[in-house]
Each structure stands twice: as C-alpha cells, then as structure tokens.
C-alpha cells in the first residue's frame, strides 16, 4: 500500500517537474513548479510522517519563494513569443551539464544508508515530530544551525545593500543627470 502510494506520488512529482521544463509559457512553468513542491510535501507527509517538514516546505517554497517568482515574471510580462531562440550548441551543453549533475547525484545516493539514525528514543518517536526536531537542532546540530542563520543574515543585508537607491546620480529617462 505504502509502496504503491510512493510510486504514485513520485510519478506525479516527476510529471510536474518535466512539465516545468517543457511548458512554453514561463508563468505556467512556475505554476507547475508550485505543484511539484506540493507533491514533494506530500511525500514528506505521507511517506516519512514528517508533517512539520512538509508544512514548512509548503510555507517557504510554495507560499513565499514561488509567489515572488510569479510576481517577478508577471511584472516582466514574459510570454512565449518574447522567448529568445537558443542555439543547438547551447541546448546540447545544457543537456550534458544536467546529465552530469544527475550522474553525481545518483552516485552519491546509490549507497546511502537509509536507516533512521539516532538513539532509540528518537527512533521510537516519529522522525518528523517537532519536539525531536527542535531537540536535535538545538543540541546536536547547534553550530551548523547558527552558522546557517548567519549566512541568511548576510544574504539579507546584501540584498538590502544591492537594492538601496543610489542617490549620487539621478536619472531621468535613460540619460544620467549630474
């Protein structure tokens, strides 16, 4: 039952992921990507029983990041006609690069140990429960957690600095005005 459910969800996920690449319209691509994230969340929730991770995936990716993607694409008003044609060489090199990344991922995950790690207490409770997750995050993985938060802070400040209005030169139209 669980295996067939996994195959079904995995098939749907891959179908939507392919549609992201195949569809001509960028807006449709983003909407398919949203569906892909939903399917990944479904995988977390039903297969791993990790409701918390699944919900956070929906909030962060489907809710926030994809909305910003949609926002930017709608603002630029891209459509199928405006899409510039790529040369054949470009397409082949993209396919080769993507294929090599796939090869590396398969090689890395082939011998992965899929057993649940940790003490008997942790294995006893569900791996997705927030209590266990919080405990592990703030004891065993505290340093990486804090380093990651500093990374986010730096990225945030960087975005503010980049987005800040440059007052030294004012522009009217395309001509810079001194």
């Amino acid at each position, binding site marked *: 039952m669980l295996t067939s459910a996994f195959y079904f969800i995995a098939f749907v996920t891959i179908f939507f992921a392919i549609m992201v690449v195949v569809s001509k*319209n960028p*807006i*449709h691509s983003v*909407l398919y990507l*949203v569906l892909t994230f939903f399917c990944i969340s479904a995988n977390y929730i039903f297969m791993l029983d990790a*409701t*918390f991770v699944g*919900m*956070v995936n*929906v*909030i962060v990716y*489907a*809710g*926030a990041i*994809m*909305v*910003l993607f*949609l*926002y930017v694409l*709608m*603002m630029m008003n891209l459509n199928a006609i405006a899409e510039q044609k790529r040369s054949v060489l470009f397409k082949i090199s993209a396919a080769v690069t993507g294929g090599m990344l796939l090869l590396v991922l398969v090689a890395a995950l082939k011998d992965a140990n899929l057993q649940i790690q940790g003490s008997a207490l942790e294995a006893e409770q569900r791996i997705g*429960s*927030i209590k266990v997750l919080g405990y592990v995050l703030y004891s065993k993985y505290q340093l990486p957690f804090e380093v990651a938060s500093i990374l986010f802070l730096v990225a945030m400040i960087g975005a503010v600095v980049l987005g800040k209005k440059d007052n030294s030169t004012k522009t009217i139209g395309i001509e810079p005005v001194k």
Partner: protein
Amino acid sequence: MFSLENITNTTHTWLNQTFSPTLALLTEFLIVGVLVIGLFAVLGLVLVFMERKVSAVMQIRLGPNRVGPMGIFQTLADTLKLVMKEGLTPNGADKFLFNLAPFVVMITAMLILAPIAFAKGFQMWDINIGVLYVSAISSISVIGILMAGWASNNKYSLLGAMRSGAQIVSYELSAGLAVLSIVILSGSLSISDIIASQQNGWWIFKGHIPAIIAFVIFIIAVTAETNRAPFDLAEAESELTAGFHTEYSGMKFALFFLAEYVNIFIVCAIGATLFFGGWMPFHIGSWTAFNNIMDYIPSSIWFFGKTFFLIFLIMWFRWTFPRLRIDQLLNLEWKYLLPISMFNLLLMTFVAIMGWYF
C-alpha cells in the same frame, strides 16, 4: 444540554454499527463535505447581509429592507441574480488559468477550515501542527489571486493582483509572529491543545500586555491579508475598477466574493481560538461556581459569538478608516508592525520563561 459532540458521537457509532468501517468512513467524509459546503453558503449569505446592515448603521441609513422582513432575503436574491448571469471569459485571457483561479481561492479557503474546532469535540482534523497548517495553506490563496490577475490579460487586474501579492506576503510575517507568541505561551501547535490551555482563562487576559499587543497586530495583519478596507488596495474600486476580479462575472465572481467573506470568518475563528479560547467558556481562575454557570452556555455558541464579535470588529474598521496608499501600507508593515511584533515575541518569550502569566 445541547451539544454537537453528542451528535457526532452518535452518528459515528451508528454508522460503524450499520456499515463496514471503510463505508462508514466514506459516509463521514461525504457528510463533512456537505456540511462544509453548507457552512460556506450560509456564511456567504449571513456575512454579506451583516456587512450591509453594519455599514448602514455606521453611515446612519437603513440598508437593505425590501426583500423579506428587515431585508433578510436580499443576499439570497443577489445570489440568484449572480447564478443567472453569464460567466464571460475574455478573448485574450489564458482560458484555463482564468477559469481555474476562483476554484483555487475557494479550495484553499475550504482546506483551512479543517483544523478549526467549532465546538467541544467538533473538529474535522486534530492535526498536531494545526496552527502551522493554517499559515501554510493560507499562503497558497495568493497564488490563486495572482493567477486570476495575470490570466485576465487586463492591466487593472494585473495591478490589483500585484498589490495583493505584495500585501499578503508582507503581512503574513506579522500575523505569523503574533500567532507564534500564543504558541510560546501554550507550548503547542495543536488547536485543541491551545484551547485546552485556556481552561482557567483566555490568553488575552492571562498573557498580560504582550498578548494584547499580539492581538492588535494579529487583527491588523489579518485585515490586510483578507484584502479588506482600509487595506483593500487589491480592488481599490476608485483606482482599479475592481482589481484582480475586474474581468470576472456571474458565478466565477461570486466565488471570489464568497471566498473573501469565508476568509474573514476563518481568520476571525483563528483569532478567537488563539486569543479568546475558541469554544472555551469564560472562566476565571478557580472560581468554580462562576465557571460552572458559564459552562451551561453551549460551547458552539461561545465559539460563534466570539468569531462574530471579531468579524464585527473588522467590518467596523472597513467603514471607519480611509484606504491607505501602497507606500503607507508597506511602510506600516515593514517599519512598524514587523519590528514591534519581533520585539513583542522576545518579550513574550521572557514572560513565558519567567512564568509571569497566570
């Protein structure tokens, strides 16, 4: 005493005795589905009528008073009119997304209803991360709005959708932080646990000043999230005709309209659950006699009473404050509400650690 819990329990045992467990479960799904759709229809009718009457009172006029006694059938007549109307799809529109968008908005509204406890023991799905589930699903409805705005192929719709997107994404943060401060106090993300933790008093009274600040921020943020005046820039009728649903007509428009009112109900129900104890009657600490008297009022009445009080509050805002400009709106969130709610969260954590709440 009248109790919804008894009705559900009786139905559940009767179904399980009569049918096989699978069939009983399917029947229960069906009953819940019909009840949700019924609740949506009734809410739409009642809330639209309530809004028109409240606005009439605020502006010292009579409001609808022709159809039925006191005009109570006015919204029914309006709905009938909308059903009869033709649902147009513009030629330049992205047809599939244009027709899909109202349903996306509606389905997300339906999904949020799942963890809400309407009365004691009357809850569809007691998920252990209920509050998180609500904020996850509510962030999806903006995709429906953006879809509607873009697929209409109309500049007013697109502008309305953009404004709505910017607004919902930013105000979600303050609403989330306000919700988190109650989660800190109750120590659980599950809706039923949060209600149970208010057995000896509601959090708005027990949590002192930080809880009151959190409540004020929550009410402001959810008013903005549901695109209600004074934050209704998404459909500012004097600037954008009707915002993201300019091109919609007939039943498709009605779905957007209904979703707006259902969303108001949902956010008010969440607010009532977090700050006013959901279905929990008004209890004061250890005054057993007083608490027992309060228990005689059915829990469903408590829940709907609190929710409708909050809905009235939001309607009151709409007919009292003028609309904000887009820069004022974003300044209010990013320069005032977000820092205040972050500081408030820290304050709340401090209060919770020191045990300064009742």
